[in-house]
C-alpha cells in the first residue's frame, strides 16, 4: 500500500503509519449550507477528513454530495458517504464522477438504513447494487478507467474507497469472513460501528490481524461519546447491532446527571487511548452525534493532536 491512489489526505496519513482521525457531519434538513460549514469548521483542524452522511436513518436531508462540496470549499476534506438504497448504478456512477470533479477524494460505501425508519416509509428502495458491489464499482471506475457498462471513462475518478464493518452484528461467526469479503471487493479503509465492548472488539481485531486483513486495509475504530445514561440505554436496547456493556451504563449512572456528559467524554478518551495500542487499529472515526463541538477536546485529550502534516 505504498503508492497513492487519490489526492486524499486521509490516505496519506494512514499510509504514513499515523493513526488517522475522521469525524462525521450530518447535512441539514433544509437548504442552509451554513449549518454544514459551521460543523465542519468546528472540527477542521482536529481531523484528517470528515464523513458526510447520506440521508442517514432514511430521513430526507441535503444531499451528501452537495454538503461535501460545501465542506471542500472550506478547505475541509470530505468522505462522501453513499448508500445504495436510493440510487441505481446510473446515478451512483454519475455521482462518483461528480464528486471526483470537485476533488472529493474519499468515499464510504454503504447499503443504508431501510426506508421504513425514515420520513418516506412508503417510498421504493433501489438496491440495484449492494454495498460490496458499490465498492467494486468505484474501484472498477478508478482502476480500470471504465464504467460498469464497459465504456472508457475520460479522466477516471481518483477516490480512496472505504466500507463499514460492524464487529458486533449477528451472526458473529461471519464477522471476519464478511470483512475479508469487503476487502476482496476493494475496500481500502474500514470504519467500524461504534465500539463500547472493547473485549469483543479486540477479539475481532485479533482475528482480523491473524487473517492478514490489516495488511490489506486500514481499520478505523468507530467511537461515539455517550451524552447521558439515557443515551447509553437507548443505544443498548434500541439500536440494531450495538453492543453496550452494562459497565458503561453503570459508570454513567454512577455520576450525577450534569456530569454524565463529561463522563461520557472521559470513557471515549480512555477507549481511544486503550485501542491505540491494539495491533491493527489504524485510526479512529469519531462520531459525536450532534455534538461536533466536543470532537476537538476528544482528539486533544486522546493524544491525537496536532494532526500530522502530510
Amino acid at each position, binding site marked *: 500500500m505504498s503508492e497513492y491512489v487519490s489526492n486524499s489526505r486521509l490516505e496519506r496519513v494512514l499510509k504514513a503509519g499515523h493513526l488517522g482521525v475522521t469525524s462525521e457531519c450530518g447535512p441539514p434538513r433544509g437548504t442552509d449550507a451554513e449549518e454544514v460549514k459551521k460543523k465542519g469548521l468546528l472540527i477542521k483542524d482536529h481531523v484528517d477528513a470528515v464523513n458526510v452522511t447520506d440521508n442517514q436513518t432514511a430521513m430526507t436531508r441535503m444531499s451528501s454530495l452537495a454538503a461535501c462540496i460545501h465542506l471542500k470549499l472550506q478547505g475541509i476534506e470530505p468522505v462522501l458517504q453513499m448508500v445504495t438504497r436510493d440510487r441505481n448504478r446510473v446515478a451512483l456512477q454519475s455521482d462518483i464522477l461528480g464528486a471526483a470533479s470537485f476533488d472529493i477524494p474519499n468515499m464510504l460505501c454503504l*447499503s443504508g438504513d*431501510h426506508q*421504513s425508519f425514515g420520513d418516506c416509509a412508503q417510498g421504493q428502495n433501489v438496491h440495484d447494487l449492494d454495498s460490496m458491489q458499490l465498492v467494486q*464499482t468505484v474501484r472498477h471506475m478508478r482502476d480500470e478507467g471504465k464504467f460498469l457498462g464497459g465504456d472508457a471513462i475520460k479522466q477516471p475518478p481518483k477516490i480512496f474507497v472505504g466500507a463499514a464493518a460492524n464487529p458486533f*452484528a*449477528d451472526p458473529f461467526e*461471519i464477522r471476519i469472513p464478511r470483512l475479508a469479503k469487503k476487502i476482496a471487493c476493494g475496500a481500502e479503509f474500514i470504519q467500524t460501528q461504534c465500539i463500547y465492548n472493547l473485549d469483543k472488539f479486540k477479539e475481532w481485531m485479533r482475528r482480523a490481524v491473524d487473517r492478514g486483513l490489516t495488511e490489506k486495509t486500514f481499520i478505523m475504530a468507530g467511537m461515539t461519546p455517550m451524552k447521558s445514561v439515557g443515551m447509553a440505554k437507548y443505544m443498548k436496547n434500541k439500536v*440494531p447491532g450495538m453492543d453496550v456493556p452494562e459497565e458503561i451504563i453503570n459508570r454513567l449512572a454512577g455520576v450525577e446527571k450534569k456530569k454524565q456528559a463529561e463522563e461520557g467524554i472521559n470513557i471515549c478518551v480512555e477507549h481511544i487511548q486503550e485501542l491505540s495500542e491494539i495491533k491493527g487499529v489504524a485510526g479512529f472515526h469519531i462520531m459525536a452525534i450532534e455534538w461536533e463541538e466536543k470532537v476537538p477536546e476528544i482528539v486533544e485529550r486522546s493524544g491525537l493532536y496536532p494532526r500530522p502534516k502530510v
Partner: protein
Amino acid sequence: MIIAEKKPIEEIIQEVKDFDRILILGCNECVTVCEAGGKKEVEVLASVLRMYFMAQGQEKTIGERTLERQCDHEYLEEIRNIIDDYDAVVSLACGVGVQFAAEKYLTTPLLPGVNTICLGANEDRGLWTERCQACGTCVLARTGGICPVSRCAKRVLNGPCGGSTNGKCEISKDTDCAWQLIIDRLKALDKMDDYEKVAPVKDWSTDRAGGPRTVIREDVKI
C-alpha cells in the same frame, strides 16, 4: 403459488355501487389455495354484497361463477355466453386473471376483488409468506437455496447488512434475516466457504426493470 388477500369490502362496494348486474368471478387455482378468491370466497362476497345493497334498498343482480383458471383462454371462454348478462365483473383472481379477463371481454368493466401480494408458500395454517420475486435470473444455487432477492428487505446479494440482530431483520422483529437463514443453511450443507464468494453485480434486466417479460418456447408452439 401466487398469494393474494381479499380487498376490504368497503373498497369493493365503492367500485361496484353504480352497477346493477355484477358477476363475482372466482379462480380455482392459487387464490383458492390461499383462501382469497376461490368458490368459497365468491359465495361469501356475493352474500355480503347482496345483504349490503338490500339494506340500502337497492336491487342488484349478483351472479357467482368460479373458473378452473382465469389465466387461460380455454377457461375464460366459459363465461362468454353469460358475460353480457352483467354490467361488471369482480374478479377474485390474481392480477394476471383480472387482466386476462379484461383483455378478452373488452366492453365489460373488470374490477379486482383481491390484492395480489407475492409469490409465496403456505407456511402454516393462515400464514402465507413470500419466497420469490421472479427476478428472472435465479441465484438460489449460490445462496443455499434461500432467496436474498425476495427475503432480504434490501435484496442484498452479499449480506447480511449491519441491521441483522438475533437472526431478525432491522425492519421487524417478526421478519427473519434472509442472510442469517442463508448462513445457517450453508453451515448445514458444510459449504461456508461459499459465503466468501462475492456475488457479482446482478443483471436486473430480466427483472421488472427490463419491462414486461415474455417467455417464448418454439418447441411447444402449435
